[in-house]
């Protein structure tokens, strides 16, 4: 193989290595977290980022032909499909789980959450104001 082909091989295998590392991270996250809605966060990463990196490496290997276009089509399809399937799975979990409030806070309407967030930011502003005032006094 010529020098150019070796460089192409190295760049492609670098992308594949990144993809495999992200897949391993995904698996670690799936076994590390304790609840489905947390695990879903780790699992959604592999659906888009890891497969994109792997297929990008394979696209570099295959060169400029029709196969590359089809590999790109798979990546584009997964960009659209993965968020939808994650959303549907989260909906399944929130609908069927009877003791969801043990795992996360539930707000019946969105105004309660907005009020709490506003109170939290006000507290933070007050704290920072105190911290900045303290050395002066």
């Amino acid at each position, binding site marked *: 193989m010529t020098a150019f082909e070796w460089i192409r091989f190295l760049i492609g295998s670098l992308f594949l290595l990144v993809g495999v590392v992200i*897949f391993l991270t995904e698996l670690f996250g799936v076994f590390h977290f304790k609840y489905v809605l947390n695990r879903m966060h780790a699992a959604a990463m592999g659906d888009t980022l890891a497969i994109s990196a*792997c297929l990008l490496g394979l696209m570099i290997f295959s060169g400029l032909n029709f196969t590359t276009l089809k590999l790109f089509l798979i990546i584009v399809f*997964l960009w659209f*499909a993965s968020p939808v399937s994650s959303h549907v*799975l989260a909906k399944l979990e929130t609908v069927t789980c009877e003791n969801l409030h043990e795992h996360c806070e539930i707000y019946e309407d969105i105004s309660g959450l907005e009020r709490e967030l506003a109170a939290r930011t006000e507290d933070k502003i007050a704290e920072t104001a105190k911290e900045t005032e303290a050395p002066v006094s």
Partner: protein
Amino acid sequence: MEPYHTLYIALLLLFSFLLIICLIRAVKGPRVADRLMAVNMMGTMVMVMISILALLLNEGYLIDICLIYAMISFLSVVVLSKVYIGIYEERMHKENGKEDNSHDSI
């Protein structure tokens, strides 16, 4: 093309190992959503394996199969989620109906 061949075989072996770990998650998962999520992950890994196989065998049409596999995997997750939501709601509806009937009889 010796280095490419070695790399593809090594990646296929690695992905088959990761697939078995995904299968463990699917068997262990305490809830239905856990299992469906593991199946989705396995689908993603199988897609990468099919793409590697297409380049290893130098057969372009295997990529078409990969694209169709992506569509079917997405469809299976969506349809199974909808089916389980439907089953759950029907069961809740039935239980509530039974309770109402018992109250009426008492």
